[in-house]
């Protein structure tokens, strides 16, 4: 498979805004380590899921890839080309598009659907004539399951599911190669969720898209993705093909995540695994293995050891000293 995007040792930190006295007395500035040394690759045509709970840095990675957030350090290669030069990341926007989580705030309430869809085409000069643009807008609306008459209406006239369809159409309007979908169904009702997911899969097939799907819901992820990256507190803790990770999770955090998803009571659960306590703040990340304060399997070694993502099975990696490595 052809490599489309490669991220290497990405770090993103945000300074914590402190009170005046805090600034006076503390010599070292505090940082939120939203993403801490993350590397991954996305191949053309694949759907990669970035899974984790709130604050794990999954959205930050997505926003970084469309230059809404700047990196502290790290490198990005798109089609093998180094993107570190100034302005290069911005140029990625033509190829990488983003679908936001909340359809209620991601559409400008003062613009008609027509304007929302035609702006990106104008900016990137994607249509030569007005007629061509109109045709493209109609085609886009039909592709996402709306009728062309909807073009002249304002966002508030649509339901949540329809709004999300408009957001998808906007993302597709620049004919991107890679779509980053940031929990596109989390704000929707269950019966609408399935509609939107089916639409995404269908669009991916017909348009040959590559997708980075960000979610906390393993049920959704299992349905849509080919490969999973599980994140906890800014680092990737497990990766592998979706089916295998869900069938046989190796990292304790993945196990807990899987076991926490409500199951159909008629089906047997394959893992029953609970973590204790809450997710720590990203300002004070625990030393050693980041999961050790919550992990029931944690040993003394976990408090101090340096955990790295290591190969544990063909195509699978995990960052846990308790998981046996392959030599």
């Amino acid at each position, binding site marked *: 498979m052809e490599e489309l995007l490669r991220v290497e040792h990405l770090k993103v930190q945000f300074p914590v805004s402190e009170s005046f006295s805090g600034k006076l007395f503390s010599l070292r500035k505090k940082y939120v380590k939203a993403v801490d040394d993350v590397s991954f690759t996305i191949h053309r045509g694949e759907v990669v899921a970035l899974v984790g*709970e*709130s604050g794990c840095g999954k959205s930050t990675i997505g926003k970084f890839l469309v230059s809404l957030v700047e990196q502290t350090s790290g490198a990005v290669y798109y089609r093998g080309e180094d993107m570190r030069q100034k302005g290069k990341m911005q140029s990625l926007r033509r190829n990488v598009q983003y679908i936001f989580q909340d359809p209620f705030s991601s559409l400008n309430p003062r613009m008609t659907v027509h304007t929302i869809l035609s702006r990106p085409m104008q900016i990137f000069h994607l249509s030569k004539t007005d007629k061509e643009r109109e045709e493209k807008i109609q085609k886009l609306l039909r592709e996402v399951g709306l009728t062309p008459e909807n073009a002249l209406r304002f966002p508030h006239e649509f*339901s949540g*599911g329809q709004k999300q369809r408009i957001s998808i159409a906007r993302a597709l309007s620049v004919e991107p190669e890679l779509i980053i979908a940031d929990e596109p169904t989390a704000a929707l*009702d*269950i*019966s*609408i*969720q*399935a*509609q939107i*997911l*089916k639409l995404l899969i269908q669009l991916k097939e017909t348009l040959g898209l590559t997708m980075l799907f960000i979610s*906390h*819901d*393993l*049920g*959704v992820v*299992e*349905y849509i993705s080919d490969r999973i990256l599980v994140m906890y507190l800014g680092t990737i803790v497990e990766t592998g093909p979706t*089916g295998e990770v*869900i*069938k046989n999770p190796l990292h304790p*955090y993945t196990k*807990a*995540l*899987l*076991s*926490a*998803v*409500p*199951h*159909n*009571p*008629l*089906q047997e659960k*394959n893992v029953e695994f*609970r*973590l*204790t*306590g*809450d*997710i720590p703040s990203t300002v004070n990340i625990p030393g050693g293995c980041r999961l050790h304060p919550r992990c029931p399997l944690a040993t003394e070694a976990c408090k101090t050891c340096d955990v790295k993502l290591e190969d544990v099975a063909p195509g699978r990696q995990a960052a846990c000293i308790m998981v046996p490595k392959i030599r």
Partner: protein
Amino acid sequence: MEQNICLRVNNLQTSFYTDRGVIHSVRGVSFDVRKGEMLGIVGESGCGKSVTAFSILNQVKHPGKIDSGEVIFHGKDLLKLSESEMRKLRGSSMSMIFQEPLTALNPSFSIGWQIAEAYRIQGEKDKAVIRERTIDILRRVKLPEPELRMKEYPYQFSGGMRQRALIALALACKPELVFADEPTTALDVTVQAEILDLIESLQAEMNMSVVLISHNLNLIGERCGRVLVFYAGKIIEEAETAELFKHPAHPYTVGLFGSLLSIHQDGKADPKTMPGEVPNMLDDIRSCSFAPRCPYAETRCFEREPELVPVGPGHYYSCHRPLKGGAK
């Protein structure tokens, strides 16, 4: 049988009188809550599941109004009680766990003070007793170091801790009946399971009745013995959990199961999508509310709204064309 009933709701109707018309949120709902059971209410946003709980607690806010119905608790109709009687009841025998713990707690008072207040309202005067009981309830919700943390304020707590504090507040006076309205939706997934475990164990320990409200069928299925499925302000199916999961009868329930993306170990599941969207509750619904989305709808479905009728022991549905034995 009658002694087993903790709460009985008869033909409850609640509407919101807005500038844009009347929103019929709850359109005639009747059900029982049995003593010591965990009853699940499942439905999508706007189906009336939360409004039902607020109506039972007589806490519907303007412009909402309970139009008619009875809520029988200990032989009394709660809807006829005065505000002060109701307030007393809400503190002691009935309470609610809210979805968003940050807004449900008062930011200006310490957690301990807020829980102690519940005891003070009940007439407890001895400060030592109040303190002891506050620490006890915080320990029961597994808050670490309750003696220290009771002095802290809501903003100092994490999301999961706040929800624990809120549960402690709701259970402070050992109520007989607790409504939990999406108690874990605002929390992270791994914390969710822990909080639900806690509610479940406290329910058994204190022998309460719990009404768990959620949009997630699997979550309800994992925790509850009996389920009510809400759609457009009505109960459209009611059954024991196992029965509902094995033999869903109403096409909406079946559709809900189909759209639910639960984890399957054996390869990908393909969700069956339901077309269309939830009806606009401003309209006066006279036909079956699900008919426009229903793949099996016939002429009569558009003419008359079906009644809730029994299919088997404890299993009711409201449909002209039920799926017998379930077409799952």
